[in-house]
């Protein structure tokens, strides 16, 4: 998918052609109806492309948001004589509010809970639509819904809908490449890593959910205008499933897929009209189709087909300026300071009153045998766990209760023991996510500055020439390097490396060692947690040793490693 200017021009051209065709080519009522349904549904399915495709969150109430838009237009124009456009906007706003409300209640819980809440909401809405007769007209539905002035003919309205479809498709398409879009994709691919790189997971999910609801409402409002008659049975749970299937069939992550899925699932039943002759047969086949798609084509038709179009990654632009690392210095003596840190899991004291002072510049190591509490400590310092007691200061700023995604602002960056990269993105995109964290002074120049910096970071770790390749095409060792580049792009003050040598062979470890040296030379403070003593001894000047959740040694590496109680911690007590 080309995101260049050429691509956008082509899109605009194609859209213009399609809109013109829709507005002028005369079709009989039946075909016009099909097109109208496909177009309005597709807008709603675009909403699913955002929340499910981009952000990975389940939404089983899209038909409910569709209904909110439809009923706003229907009741607003017919019962209250409010102009069409106003009703449409109101419908979108109501859908947005509902989506946001639902999201606020359950997005923190995610997964199954979200599925259940969305289903429940859908069911409640259906009950209300059917039973609040005085307000909603009940099962009779609302008829004679007017169209806005200038678009009263079926043809013109269809042209309008297709135009709006093209516009919303464009927005969804472009969304993937914005900062918000990248945040959504990061949340979908790896929540923990997204959080560690400055992304507010909850807010991102909420926005995705709200946008989906908004588009659902838009589609529904246009649907009401298009068909002039709506009734509750058009917006039931089964319809949410139909919308979901359209998204899945076409390919969840892209508007092109959404359009394909919608088109197919509206056209196919028309070609297979005999299926509709037996009530239930059509939907039964639907059900099987959903299972088969999930089993065999998880990326949908477009996902499958676009793999053939992908071809070779475009060669990246030439390397620009070298990577600049300007760690901030508030004047506090320690880059990272931890005082009396405790983390208890029930009765288990994983970390029991540990102090840690990491001096500015150079590398400091945190070591200890298995079960000593190192990993827990790292997770508390980076915010994944809440400390039971104690204080954490990054560059003099207290971050003890700051959520993980905000610790990047204080200057903390980390890599993970079992590499957490965003696997559906390219190496460069991964690094850009790191670079665009809040408060990164070195990317103030806007879009270009951001991408130049990311490129420079990749170049710094030696992978600049492969910037546009997707993560799965890199070896494990190289993925490790990309993760480090992502952290560096954020211009951190303290870089926390969690077992960076794990899984690397000897050559890769040597390259890592050299890289660490180059990073330290730029004045960055590094905290390494690892078991590979050769690496530690070579790279870190200071080391802190933990055992049983407590600090048992701290000082210059060579001296500490000679201490008998350190040897004892690892090898066992010598008599």
């Amino acid at each position, binding site marked *: 998918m080309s995101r260049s200017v050429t691509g956008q021009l082509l899109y605009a051209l194609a859209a213009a052609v399609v809109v013109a065709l829709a507005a002028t080519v005369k079709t009989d009522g039946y075909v016009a109806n099909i097109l109208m349904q496909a177009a309005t549904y597709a807008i709603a399915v675009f909403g699913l492309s955002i929340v499910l495709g981009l952000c990975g969150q389940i939404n089983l109430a899209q038909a409910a948001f569709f209904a909110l838009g439809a009923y706003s237009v229907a009741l607003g124009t017919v019962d209250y004589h409010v102009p069409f456009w106003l009703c449409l906007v109101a419908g979108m706003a109501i859908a947005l509010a509902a989506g946001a409300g639902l999201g606020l209640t359950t997005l923190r819980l995610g997964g199954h809970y979200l599925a259940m809440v969305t289903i429940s909401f859908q069911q409640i809405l259906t009950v209300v639509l059917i039973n609040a007769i005085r307000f909603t007209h009940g099962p009779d539905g609302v008829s004679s819904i007017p169209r806005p002035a200038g678009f009263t003919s079926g043809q013109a309205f269809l042209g309008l809908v297709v135009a709006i479809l093209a516009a919303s498709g464009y927005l969804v398409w472009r969304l993937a490449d914005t900062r918000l879009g990248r945040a959504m994709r990061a949340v979908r691919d790896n929540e923990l890593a997204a959080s560690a790189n400055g992304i507010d997971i909850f807010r991102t999910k909420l926005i995705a959910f709200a946008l989906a609801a908004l588009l659902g409402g838009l589609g529904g409002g246009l649907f009401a205008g298009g068909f002039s008659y709506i009734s509750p049975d058009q917006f039931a749970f089964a319809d949410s499933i139909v919308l979901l299937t359209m998204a899945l069939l076409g390919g969840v992550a892209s508007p092109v897929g959404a359009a394909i899925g919608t088109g197919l699932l509206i056209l196919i039943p028309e070609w297979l009209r005999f299926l509709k002759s037996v009530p239930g047969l059509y939907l039964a086949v639907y059900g099987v189709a959903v299972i088969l798609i999930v089993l065999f084509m998880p990326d949908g038709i477009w996902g499958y087909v676009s793999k053939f179009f992908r071809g070779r990654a475009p060669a990246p632009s030439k390397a620009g300026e070298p990577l600049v690392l300007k760690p901030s210095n508030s004047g506090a003596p320690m880059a990272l300071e931890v005082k009396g840190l405790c983390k208890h899991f029930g009765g288990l004291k994983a970390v029991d009153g540990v102090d840690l002072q990491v001096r500015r510049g150079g590398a400091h190591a945190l070591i200890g045998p298995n079960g000593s509490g190192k990993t827990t400590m790292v997770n508390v310092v980076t915010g994944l766990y809440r400390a039971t007691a104690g204080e954490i200061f990054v560059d003099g700023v207290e971050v003890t209760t700051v959520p993980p995604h905000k610790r990047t602002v204080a200057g903390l960056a980390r890599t993970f023991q079992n590499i957490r990269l965003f696997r559906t993105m390219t190496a460069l995109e991964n690094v850009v996510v790191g670079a665009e964290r809040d408060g990164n002074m070195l990317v103030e120049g806007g879009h270009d500055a951001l991408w130049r910096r990311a490129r420079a970071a990749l170049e710094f770790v030696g992978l600049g020439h492969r910037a546009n390749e997707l993560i799965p095409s890199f070896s494990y060792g190289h993925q490790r390097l990309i993760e480090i580049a992502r952290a560096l792009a954020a211009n951190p003050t303290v870089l926390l490396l969690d077992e960076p040598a794990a899984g690397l062979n000897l050559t890769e470890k040597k390259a890592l060692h050299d890289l660490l040296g180059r990073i330290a030379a730029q004045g960055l403070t590094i905290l390494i947690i690892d*078991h590979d*003593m050769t690496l530690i001894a070579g790279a870190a000047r200071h080391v802190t040793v933990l055992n049983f959740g407590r600090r048992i040694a701290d000082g210059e590496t060579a001296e500490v490693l000679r201490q008998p109680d350190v*040897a*004892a911690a690892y*090898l066992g*007590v010598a008599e």
Partner: protein
Amino acid sequence: MTLLEVKDLSVSYGEIEALRGVSFTIDQGAVVALLGSNGAGKSTTLRAISGLVAPSAGSILFDGKPIAGLSPRAIVKLGVAHVPEGRRIFPGLTVRENIMLGASNGNASVGTIRQEADAMFDLFPAIKPFADALGWTLSGGQLQMVAVARGLMAKPRLLLLDEPSLGLAPIVMQAVFQIVAEIQRRGTTVLLVEQNAHMALKVANWGYVLETGRLALGGDPTTLWSDERIRDAYLGGEQAKA
């Protein structure tokens, strides 16, 4: 006689090669310690033997029979029990129930199994008072005993013990290693994976040291312990000494 023979064993997790060409043998009736620092491949070795992971190359012969790639169920039926790292006691079941499930590799009646479980409490008197307590209420050391008892219920000829001392206070560790000695006395062969080299070598008849997926050292405990290279395997090479 040789009970277990591992030849040129290689195991990969996706791209990462965790074990490369490891070969060693275990004699019947022995306690063999498999040592090495974290990430050396010790747990991977046990998982390959018990069938949780399939080797990418090499062979494993148990009592002359090839077992590499068999399912864990088949392997435990042949007489190899694996007590994994972290004990993994079923938290919602009582101690007695956990132990009784250790006999799941056979077809004995519930009554027989219950009797055998009671016999276990004689071997591990410290956990007898907790027989009907839920798994999650016990301390680390107690859980380790339950895990070992559960493993023994399978009546294994070879017991694979993965880091029994993990997270235990030194005095509790002593008790665990004494149990290892007792198990040996009763005729079970033990392959003991440990980070705590000193204690493991005190109870073992033979030792091997893994370093980043390869076998670095092997020998009897005294020789191994006084070998400088064992320190290097854990605490780094020449650079560390500088």
